[in-house]
């Protein structure tokens, strides 16, 4: 009887110990989950940090400069006397270089994507795609060197009177850099189009190129749109190429042969100097940064929406 009781007691305490162990496991699982959640939320904290700092410093800026002057003045000379704070010259520089870059990257990227997805043999695709991605792995300062000392002289041979650094040169090199952003995502979107659609077109007698252009391309539009917007937003935010080869002159112009300054190049120019914290010149870079952030935010959200749509389509 006693022996049995002791055995029972031993069993109970063993059970309790097990339960304690399990409880500890539970607690540990909880701690880990909370830690992981905190890591996931850190991305939100970064965004909040960005928005907070940009807005905080910009509020100081807009206390001294009116919104009308900021958006409608056609001169940007914040460090001269008398200062002008019109963002338009910087915006025109950013948009023109982006436009030139897209004129290079969109056709080349799209044709590359159609070729790789519809024409190339699998081994060619496997081989070429990573190589193309190296284009976006090259540091952008190196592209800047390339643009200023190799592409610019070449361009000057073709177009006489072209200044050594101008929006055209910077834009073209930037376009080469963003080809992989455009081609890679477009190709993914086209490859996600089901084979059945292609076979239907072939059965009706269409050749490859016709199938690609009239069936595959339209079916993949939202994914291709997302790729284009990714390229666009890269080009808007690109800094070093335009800072080195764009000319660094804030000038309201839509002629790509002119030198100009982009929003990003302005921030670099000011940061190289030593502006005292709190001065109006210091605050301008945050106002410029906020403009840039809002622009890319809009495009990123459109891109996100398009990408989601093509993922759900098939």
């Amino acid at each position, binding site marked *: 009887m006693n022996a049995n009781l002791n055995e029972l007691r031993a069993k109970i305490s063993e059970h309790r110990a097990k339960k304690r162990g399990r409880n500890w496991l539970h607690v540990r699982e909880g701690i880990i989950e909370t830690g992981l959640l905190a890591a996931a939320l850190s991305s939100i904290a970064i965004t909040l940090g960005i928005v907070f700092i940009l807005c905080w410093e910009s509020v100081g800026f807009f206390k001294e400069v009116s919104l009308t002057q900021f958006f409608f003045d056609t001169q940007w000379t914040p460090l001269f006397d008398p200062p002008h704070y019109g963002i338009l010259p910087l915006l025109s520089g950013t948009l023109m270089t982006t436009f030139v870059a897209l004129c290079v990257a969109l056709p080349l990227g799209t044709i590359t994507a159609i070729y790789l997805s519809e024409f190339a043999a699998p081994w060619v695709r496997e081989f070429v795609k990573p190589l193309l991605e190296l284009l976006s792995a090259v540091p952008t300062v190196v592209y800047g060197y390339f643009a200023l000392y190799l592409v610019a002289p070449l361009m000057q041979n073709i177009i006489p009177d072209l200044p050594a650094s101008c929006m055209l040169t910077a834009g073209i090199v930037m376009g080469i850099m963003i080809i992989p952003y455009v081609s890679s995502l477009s190709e993914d979107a086209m490859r996600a189009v089901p084979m059945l659609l292609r076979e239907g077109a072939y059965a009706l007698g269409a050749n490859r190129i016709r199938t690609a252009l009239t069936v595959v391309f339209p079916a993949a539009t939202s994914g291709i749109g997302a790729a284009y917007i990714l390229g666009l937003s890269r080009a808007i935010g690109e800094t070093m190429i335009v800072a080195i080869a764009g000319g660094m002159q804030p000038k309201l112009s839509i002629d790509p042969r002119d030198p100009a300054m982009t929003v990003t190049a302005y921030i670099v120019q000011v940061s190289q100097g030593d502006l005292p914290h709190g001065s109006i010149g210091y605050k301008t870079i945050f106002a410029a940064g906020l403009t840039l952030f809002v622009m890319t935010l809009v495009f*990123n959200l459109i891109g996100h929406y398009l990408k989601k749509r093509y993922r759900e389509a098939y």
Partner: protein
Amino acid sequence: MKDVDKLIRQQKFQDRFFAVLGFLCTLVGLVVLSILIIDLLRDGWKSLDYQFLTSFPSRKAESAGILVAWIGSILVAIVTALTAVPLGIAAAIYLEEYARKNWLTSFVEINITNLAGVPSIIYGLMSLGLFVYFLGLGRNVFVGGLTLGFLILPIIIVATREAIRSVPNGIREAAYALGATKWQVIWHHLLPCSVNGIATGTIIALSRALGESAPLIVVGAVVFNTVLPPSPLQANFPFVNFDWLDSSFSVMPIQVFNWVSRPQEAFHRNAAAASIVLIFITLTLNGMAMFIRYRFRKKVQW
């Protein structure tokens, strides 16, 4: 019949024409890349010697070197890796394995996509305002590394998520069936299974950080540094010190930028030489990533 033949010929011609056009367009990028590398080698190969790698910056192009720059790059990359990699992997695990489908999760997801698209220079502005002035941490290696860490965080999260997602559910179910807890499943099975994908993403992200200069210019990296940061290792106890975190720094891409913007041609040759080193590092890292991805795809069959 003749018409049909003609039509067929025409159609086949169109296909062949586009195949050639597409091939040429694909080549454009690759040709430009090779021209770029050849141009750099032509301009900078002669300046690239042992003295160049071990000299401090100087006003004379012949005696200037990249010692401070490459040491700075390595130190900054260490801070970047130590912050972004654990944080990114943890966030990815949460989003893949724990997160329920609710507004918070989709908000975090949209937020990460957006962060991946934020121009790098904005991260620099954020660090300048928040770390340098608001928190008063100074313009040092730690702040520089943290800035780049934030910059590459989205890349690591996205890559890790994809790697974890590609582990088949059977692995998870088998582990659960044997009584493993969620974390045990993740730690003992999911992470080891997806380590290749995570490594690939991390290497590519680090190579991006090494080539990035704009945010560090904004944060205030110094170009004319003639003092090296103190060594992280020391001879006496406790063998490591953390003074290097608080020292001013310069990195490779900023050194290149500085030399590119000078008028004298001798400095341009230096810029080309430093670019060769930089491009060699980034392309090697990317090659490593490609190799891991390739081997992984060949070896693993679920």
